[in-house]
Structures are given as structure tokens and as C-alpha cells.
């Protein structure tokens, strides 16, 4: 059963030093507020897993929270490379990190196997690639129906998954729309789940459309209402990506010194997402508002 709480409490209760943590979301609904809270909490020795360790993992790595990163694409999407991540991998700054590497399909297949309790998932990829030579978790399996060998990956079951959605009730029954990426599988694969949403709604809203439900209360441990919790990534229907922030990070992360200054201002220098948003300013938030475009309702019918 889930507890309704704050981001700070959810992070401190759910995540311990040394945990394997998956902050989910493919370019959409990235849990930035929780990531910043993890930095403020001073977590260490984390094994950070994420298909796309973009800004939020660059920031966690820069802050010295990680000892290992498992991933499939490490970049600043649409902008360039992850400079803090590269400093850690190439030069051990601020600390050495181990890496474990997949393609998107392989990593999402690991989550799919984890969510479904399968001992492995066969995948048609990696033949001819050098990736398996550097990753013992990419192996070959024999098709029992005579089709020869193909590759397979084992389940991934993070200690903690931190995921976002647009709306949930206070028990953690959540609706998510737009790009869902690997969010559902990451949550279903994890031991402990922190769900952070743009807004809390009545349970009747969720039950009105059960086909849109992505997670239910029994799979969620902590529920947090955190508006703009995904800035500078976006929440479909709520706000757009703040592209300036992605460009600013490219500059701020150019050296370890400038990264530390950025963290001082935007993470250590605020005590909550609300203070972060205050610093960001209303103008900037207003510029990210889309106009409204509702989905056409479906009639579920009331049967008596």
C-alpha cells in the first residue's frame, strides 16, 4: 500500500546508499524533482540505471551520487553529449564510475523480463555488434523449436523506480498519456516505487477510464504531488520542454567547476521544487504552456 508524502520524504524513505535506482521516462515525464532531491540527500554509491541518462543523471553523476551507470544512450537529447558523465567515464571526475551498456531494445527487454518475472527475454538484436563482447548479461539462447540461436538478456529488477505520471489519486492509481517509454515496466520491475504526479485527482477520475491506468496502488509505495516536477523535460498537456535549460546545461556542464556552481544555485541552493520554480520565474513557466486539446471521450457505459 502507498503513502502520500513529499518528494523529500519519499526519496529519503525509499532510497539508500548503494541501491540500484531507475529514474524512468523517455524524454517525457523525467523525474527531475526527485533527482535533485537525491542530490540534496547526499546519496552515494548508487547504481543508476536508465535507457537515456540525460541531464538528470549527468547531474547525479556530477554530484558524486553514482558508482555505476547502466544505460543505452547517454546524451543531452537534441543538444550534444553528457559532459559530466564523460568526465566520470573518461577521467574519473568526481569519481570513477563503472558502466554497463545495452541498446534501447536490450535495456527495455530487461525491464520487460523483470516486470514479468521471466528468467530471460530473447531479443533479435546484437548479432554482428561488439556490444555483447563487453557485457556478460548479453548471452545467446537456443530456440527449442529449431530456429538456431539468438541473443537474450536477463531480468532487471531495480531496488527503486522513480516514475512520474500526469495524474493519480492519493493511493497511487495513475493515468499517464503521451509517450510512456519504459515507465510502466520500470515500475512493475522494481521492488519499491516512488510515483510523482502533476496533480492528484479523485479515484473516480481514474476509475472512469481504466484502460488509461498505468500503475495501481499495490505497485506504488510513495505518492507525491509535485507540479512541474519534470521541468526542464515536459509533461504532455501540462508544459513543454524548456529547451533553454538543456542548452544552459551544455554550458554549465563544460567543466566540473561550472557544474558545481550550477548545482549550488539550482539544487543545493533551493530546498524544494517550489523554491526551484520560484527561482525559475513565472515568465518562464508561462512560456511553456500548451493550449488545451482534450482527448475525445469513450463511453464505458453504466451497466445495471
Amino acid at each position, binding site marked *: 500500500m502507498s503513502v502520500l508524502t513529499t518528494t523529500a520524504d519519499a526519496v529519503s524513505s525509499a532510497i539508500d546508499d548503494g541501491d540500484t535506482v531507475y529514474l524512468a521516462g*523517455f*524524454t*517525457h515525464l523525467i523525474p527531475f524533482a526527485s533527482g535533485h532531491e537525491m542530490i540534496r540527500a547526499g546519496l552515494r554509491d548508487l547504481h543508476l540505471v536508465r*535507457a*537515456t541518462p540525460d541531464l538528470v543523471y549527468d547531474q547525479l553523476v556530477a554530484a558524486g551520487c553514482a558508482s555505476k551507470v547502466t*544505460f*543505452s*544512450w*547517454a*546524451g543531452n*537529447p*537534441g543538444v550534444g*553529449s*553528457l559532459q559530466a*558523465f*564523460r568526465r566520470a*567515464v*573518461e577521467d574519473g571526475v568526481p569519481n570513477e564510475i563503472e558502466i554497463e*551498456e*545495452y*541498446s*534501447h*531494445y*536490450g535495456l*527495455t*527487454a530487461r*525491464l*520487460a523480463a523483470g516486470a514479468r518475472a521471466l528468467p530471460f527475454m530473447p*531479443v*533479435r*538484436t*546484437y*548479432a*554482428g*555488434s*561488439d*556490444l555483447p563482447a*563487453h557485457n556478460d548479461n548479453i548471452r545467446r539462447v537456443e530456440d527449442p523449436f529449431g530456429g*538456431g540461436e*539468438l541473443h537474450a538478456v536477463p531480468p532487471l529488477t531495480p531496488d527503486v523506480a522513480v516514475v512520474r505520471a500526469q495524474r493519480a489519486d492519493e493511493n497511487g492509481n495513475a493515468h499517464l*498519456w*503521451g*509517450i*510512456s*517509454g*519504459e*515507465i*510502466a*515496466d520500470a515500475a512493475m520491475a522494481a521492488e519499491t516505487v516512488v510515483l510523482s504526479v502533476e496533480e492528484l485527482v479523485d479515484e473516480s477520475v481514474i476509475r472512469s477510464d481504466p484502460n488509461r491506468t498505468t500503475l495501481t496502488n499495490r505497485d506504488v509505495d510513495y505518492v507525491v504531488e509535485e507540479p512541474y516536477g519534470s521541468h526542464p523535460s*515536459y509533461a*504532455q498537456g501540462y508544459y*513543454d*520542454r524548456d*529547451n533553454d535549460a*538543456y542548452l544552459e546545461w551544455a554550458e554549465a556542464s563544460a567543466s566540473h567547476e561550472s557544474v558545481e556552481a550550477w548545482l549550488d544555485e539550482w539544487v543545493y541552493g533551493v530546498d524544494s521544487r517550489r523554491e526551484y520554480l520560484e527561482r525559475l520565474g513565472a515568465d518562464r513557466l508561462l512560456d511553456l504552456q*500548451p493550449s488545451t*486539446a482534450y482527448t475525445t471521450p469513450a463511453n464505458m457505459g453504466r451497466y445495471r
Partner: protein
Amino acid sequence: MTDADYTATEAMVVAAARELDDGDSVLVGVGVPNLACNLAKRTHAPDLQMVYESGTIDSNPSKLPLSIGDPVLASGALRVVPMFDGFTTYLQAGRIDVGFLGGAQIDRHGNINSTVIGEYDDPVVRLPGSGGACDIASNAHRTIIITPHEERRLPAEVDFVTSPGYVGGREGRAELGLRGGPSAIITDKAVLRFDDDGVAYVETLHPDVSADEVRAATGWEVEISDESARTAPPTPDEVATIRDELDPQGVYTGTD
């Protein structure tokens, strides 16, 4: 700018767009591939189906997306699926006709490196990694590779095979059970195809590019079958579509 009324990057985008057939289902990458696909859809391929790694099917973006997970790719799409479904029921199941790929290094067999320059365990440059590229290169019915034409980007052999092309030749790829394979390398200087052994050769040089210039910028002794064979230049319409509609700020095409 060259003497012509288009930049070398625009020539690359246009040549890439022309690789797409109307009705193709294309897995689009961000940046130049995205420009090429949107150009094709606005010109000769209105029924192009644009699919993104993020799981959006038949996206109809109102503006050029900033990333492959931009909200404009979901708003107005025909369908949005979880990533795992996209990689399995779409890509692995053979529903993707064309994949667009780039990379830091592309070798003569069309193998792509987007992982590391130098040794894997002691990198000179750590690159972003595969993303979906290995999966796309393995499962799309054909792939189109786009790259600026520079010697360091086109070595005889890549430092690391992230995404398989013809591996050690066409037979090598077939033996591995991989679908498809690269059909072209589109650069800002030429269009390259693959011969029967799976080795890339220059099919056409772009209008103002010399054969020597291409030889000098290619990391293997590239065959140029016919030095007079030229890529058809971008039309004014194509250039106008890029400049006015697709990349008005010149983010991808502004500098040459």
C-alpha cells in the same frame, strides 16, 4: 555557402529525403534525419509514416521536434506505444521499412560506431552509445546512413561496431540472420551505395564536389565508378521548404 543556392548540409538533407519512397514506414532519428523525413513528407512522399524510437506511430509534428520524444510527436499521432512494444511489434516484427542512422564512424561495410573512439575500456572519446541504433540496423528492411563526409568519420574499419552494417561483407550479414542492411551512405559530398561484397562505393558526387575531394575525405580507397555521375541538385522548392518551414532558425542547416 557554396556557389549554388544551397549549403552542403542542405544537399545532404535533400539527397537523404529522396531515398524515401512514398508509403515507407520510417524510423526517424532527431536532427538531420528528422529534417530529411519531414522534407520527404512535404514533397514527394506525403504518405510517409514517421515512427520514432519513443513509440509514436505516424507522428504529424506541427513543428520540428527538439528531441525524439518531443510532445509534438505524440499530439496528433495515430498511436503511441510503450518503447518495448515499439522495438518488438514494430521494429523486430518487420514493420519498419527504413531506419535512418548516423554515427561518429562509419566504415566501408556500413558498420556504425556510436559507442567509443579508442578502446572500450580506455576511451579517447566516450560517445552516447547505441540507443536504438543497433536494433534498427538489425531489424529495419533497409537503413540509410547520414554523415558529414570527413576522413575521421569514414575509416576503413570502425573502432567499435555498435550497429552492424554488412559486418565482414554481405555474406557475413546474411549468416548472422540480420534483416535488411544499409542501402546508402548519404554525405554532404556524395551518395554511396554498396557493391556485391557489401563495400561502399560512390554512386554520385554532389554537384560541386570533386572526386579527389571525396577520395581525400574517405578513409578507404573508395571506388568512384563514374566521376561524371552527379547527384541531382536540390530544387528551389526543396531548399525553400527546409528554410521556411523545417529549420527556419537554421539549427541544423545554417552553418556549412
